[in-house]
């Protein structure tokens, strides 16, 4: 899913570079803290390895072959932060020196595959493998799911990036200037391709390498866990461990949000001025208010203040999505993501204020 040049507008590319940059910065700082002066040889060599693994042709069920990225392996063996840099470097070498993937689109590719891929792979792996022994089958399964999830998360991001192009970037006559497919086409297309092929390739190679390392009783499996011997990392690890049921519950809730669409009726008090002129809405308001008819016109104050803020995703339905259920899910993900990010930042500030890490 290496995005070539020409599919994303320069504005999108710039925005995605800007989105990836803080991750690169943070990743480099963390890796430097872990590895110290070993940063250069370690990252270089593992980036070279990632590049080579990207070239493997993996036979897939059905007689086709596919390529993996190796982000699952990198995230599991080296940890998410080293993986971000390693995969990014490999992608850059691929893009510039071997012509695979665009130069302007490098920020996008890096964000999708290196950043999102590493974080998802690492998170899923840690979640699923918990404290299982290093040689257990559970770890192999966790690795497989982690690789699969990472690729599909990256594909989803790429699909979204493609899909928003025609809406925002078209010429005077309305012809899309860049990727021509709207979200309703781009996202399913990317997902289908990766849920079936590329995702499987990543799954096989990630699980296969973990299984191989288990068979040869390699110290490499302990690399990442040893790296967390630092006390700050240990603290974070145990918080993660203690809160795991909460994370799982959150994930379950996120997935089940579209059920909210089944709820009949209207949330009392959450009306907009346009509801007062719509007959159906008026009937709903009346039945929810003890059969008292609402005023004929929207109250003046409501009318005035309703224009104060227009949400990017009104009614949990992003305007460019046709499916209501999908829109609900996206809103849930987005909202949850914002809240999590906010609290992570808060935690970071609090730790900095306390002078730790």
């Amino acid at each position, binding site marked *: 899913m290496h995005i*070539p*040049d*020409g*599919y994303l*507008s*320069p504005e999108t590319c710039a925005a995605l570079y800007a989105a990836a940059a803080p991750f690169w910065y943070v990743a480099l700082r963390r890796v430097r803290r872990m590895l*110290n*002066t070993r940063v*250069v*040889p*370690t990252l*270089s*060599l593992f980036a*070279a*390895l990632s*590049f*080579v*693994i990207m*070239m*493997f*042709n*993996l*036979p897939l*069920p059905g*007689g086709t*072959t596919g*390529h993996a990225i*190796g982000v699952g*392996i990198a995230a599991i*063996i080296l940890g998410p932060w080293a993986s971000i840099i390693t995969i990014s*470097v*490999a992608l*850059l*070498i691929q*893009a*510039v*020196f*071997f*012509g*695979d993937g*665009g*130069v302007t689109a490098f920020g996008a590719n890096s964000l999708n595959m290196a950043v999102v891929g590493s974080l998802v792979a690492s998170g899923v792996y840690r979640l699923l493998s918990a404290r299982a022994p290093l040689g257990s089958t559970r770890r192999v399964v966790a690795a497989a799911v982690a690789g699969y999830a990472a690729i599909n998360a990256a594909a989803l991001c790429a699909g979204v990036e493609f899909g928003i192009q025609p809406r925002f970037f078209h*010429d*005077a*006559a309305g*012809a*899309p*200037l*860049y990727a*021509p497919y709207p979200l309703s086409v781009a996202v399913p297309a990317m997902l289908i391709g990766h849920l079936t092929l590329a995702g499987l390739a990543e799954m*096989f*190679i990630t*699980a*296969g*390498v973990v*299984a*191989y390392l288990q068979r*040869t009783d*390699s110290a*490499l499996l302990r690399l990442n866990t040893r790296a967390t011997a630092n006390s700050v990392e240990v603290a974070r690890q145990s918080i993660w461990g203690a809160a795991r049921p909460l994370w799982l519950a959150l994930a379950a809730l996120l997935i089940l949000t579209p059920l909210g669409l089944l709820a009949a009726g209207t949330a009392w008090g959450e009306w907009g001025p346009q509801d007062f002129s719509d007959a159906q809405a008026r009937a709903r308001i009346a039945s929810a208010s003890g059969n008292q008819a609402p005023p004929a016109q929207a109250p003046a104050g409501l009318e005035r203040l309703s224009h104060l803020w227009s949400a990017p995703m009104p009614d949990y339905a992003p305007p460019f999505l046709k499916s209501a259920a999908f829109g609900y899910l996206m809103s849930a993900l987005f909202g949850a993501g914002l809240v999590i990010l906010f609290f992570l930042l808060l935690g970071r500030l609090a730790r900095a204020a306390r002078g730790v890490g």
Partner: protein
Amino acid sequence: MKAIHKRDIAVDESESRVLLPRTRRRRRRLSSVERTLATIVWRTERAFYAEELARADGLLQHLDPRVKVCGLLLLLLDAALARNLPTIICVFAVALALALLSRVPLRTLAARAWLGAFLFTALIALPALFITPGRAAMRLPLLGWPLTEQGIQSALYLVARVETAVTLSLLLVLCTPWTHVLKALSSLGVPVVFVVILGMTYRYVFLLLQTAREMFESRQSRTVGALDGPTGRRLAAASAGVLLARTFQLSGEVYLAMQSRGFRGEVYTLDDFQMRRRDWLALAAFLLAAVALFWLGRRGFAPPSI
């Protein structure tokens, strides 16, 4: 099984993947191992060829790499920002002219860049011809599906942009030794540590490619029949595992070697580049062209009515 030779296979350059074997006797699907080997061989030969071409006696070769990186990047941006087709074609023409003046054989460009990118992009853009909303321009003869003007325009935009971008990036790589590209990056503001990492990565890519190639070749020579399905997967995973272990060991050794010569964590480079008169002239020319094409690109041209 014999070794893979370039003439035996067709390669889709844009993806650098093997499409089909071109054997003289009968077609046979390559196993995944053979494909991997072929990919590795291809990549390596491409890189070597680029290194040779970078020393040829052409226009771009003689320029300071910083000028080249900036100039070609600006042109790339122009092609990306253009809101009309004629501008993109202009940028492509400039790229073509530069290629010719730098003694890059058109055949190389065609094989390595244009063909693969065109096939790949055309395939992707095909549905857009039909499903992009807009004025119907014509109908397919048998099926009667309508092609919209906007669809055609958008497909043209995509293909033109992709081809131009691919030509420009290939030009940079073919006409500049990669070590110079890296050093140019560091003079242009990229942190030195990244440049050093990039350089070391590129250097060790070849070593690991060689190791991987040897592993696959030895396995291939010991196997009769196709190495597909679960066997092929296990082989790939085991190879990756072996490479992983070797990489880990190698990284430790390289670190020792670096320390032995005084490495304490800081990275330094010798900057060797000096701008000569021709470099300034080239820079000015690039800037002029970039601004002109940018201005041109922002104007709305009425799309030609079909």
